[in-house]
């Protein structure tokens, strides 16, 4: 679709100071804050009123949580480096960093499922076994789905969607920036999930 039909797809809108796609993405992230905010609210309610375990009684593996935190932080850096590389007209490096982000995301999901979910389920800690595990699986599972969504989008831009780079590099770079904004938000949510579930 041409930019004449949809204005401000590339150049910043005078009111918002950014192209429309980016502003739309920020509005989406604002709604995501509400989604996770409601779940954090439910967590506090359950922790203060429900049959919640004492600290350490149902403790999760802190080293595994910390490793996953490092993985997500690193993926945030590779994501922003991918955007910077495309911005500097270096698609080779951009693709490399985007691929690195995909691999780090897969590593996060692998560790989460293999060493946490399956291990806990094997021990009988299913979502219906305890209030703690109900909210734990709900919040980390929703976060994991967000990771999966991000991986699908990044793979799209690495494979079929990369054709846009040859037609319109600026628009492609903008799309990578929007993907990055979403990805940093997913990282930001984990930054709060980690201490809430693993350390407190």
């Amino acid at each position, binding site marked *: 679709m041409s930019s004449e039909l949809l204005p401000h797809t590339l150049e910043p809108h005078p*009111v918002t100071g950014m192209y429309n796609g980016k502003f739309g993405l920020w509005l989406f992230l604002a709604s995501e804050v509400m989604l996770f905010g409601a779940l954090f609210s439910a967590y506090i309610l359950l922790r203060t*009123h429900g049959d919640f375990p004492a600290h350490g009684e149902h403790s999760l593996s802190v080293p595994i949580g910390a490793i996953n935190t490092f993985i997500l932080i690193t993926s945030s850096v590779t994501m922003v480096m991918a955007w910077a590389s495309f911005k500097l007209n270096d698609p080779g490096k951009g693709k490399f960093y985007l691929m690195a982000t995909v691999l780090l995301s897969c590593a996060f999901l692998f560790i989460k499922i293999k060493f946490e979910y399956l291990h806990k389920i094997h021990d009988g800690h299913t979502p219906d076994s305890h209030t703690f595990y109900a909210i734990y699986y709900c919040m980390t599972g929703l976060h994991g789905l967000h990771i999966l969504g991000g991986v699908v989008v990044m793979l799209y831009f690495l494979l079929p969607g990369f054709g846009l780079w040859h037609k319109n590099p600026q628009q492609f770079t903008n799309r990578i920036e929007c993907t990055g904004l979403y990805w940093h938000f997913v990282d930001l949510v984990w930054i709060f999930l980690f201490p809430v579930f693993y350390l407190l």
Partner: protein
Amino acid sequence: MASSADDVRKSIRSYLMVFGALGVLTIVTVAASWLKVSVALGIFIALVIASVKGSLVASVFMHLLHEKATLFWVLIISAFFFLLLILIPVMQSYETAHLIDQVTQ
């Protein structure tokens, strides 16, 4: 937001510095959980560190520092309702504790 090639190159240095800071703060978060402090203080310390990390991600990686005020107004509304969502169970908790005190007295 960094627009020219020079701006982007300068930004890369700050991305790497923030990466280092986030790594160090993650270690500090884990170390703080071993401190022998009250649960309330422990929660406070962990959430303060998480907030600092979150601010670094939002301001540098998401380029929030360089955006116009319009976006801040959108996000302030979102932040207000987020805090409201968090305060509701906290206030409910306080009210319940107050009622229990009244019943037991």
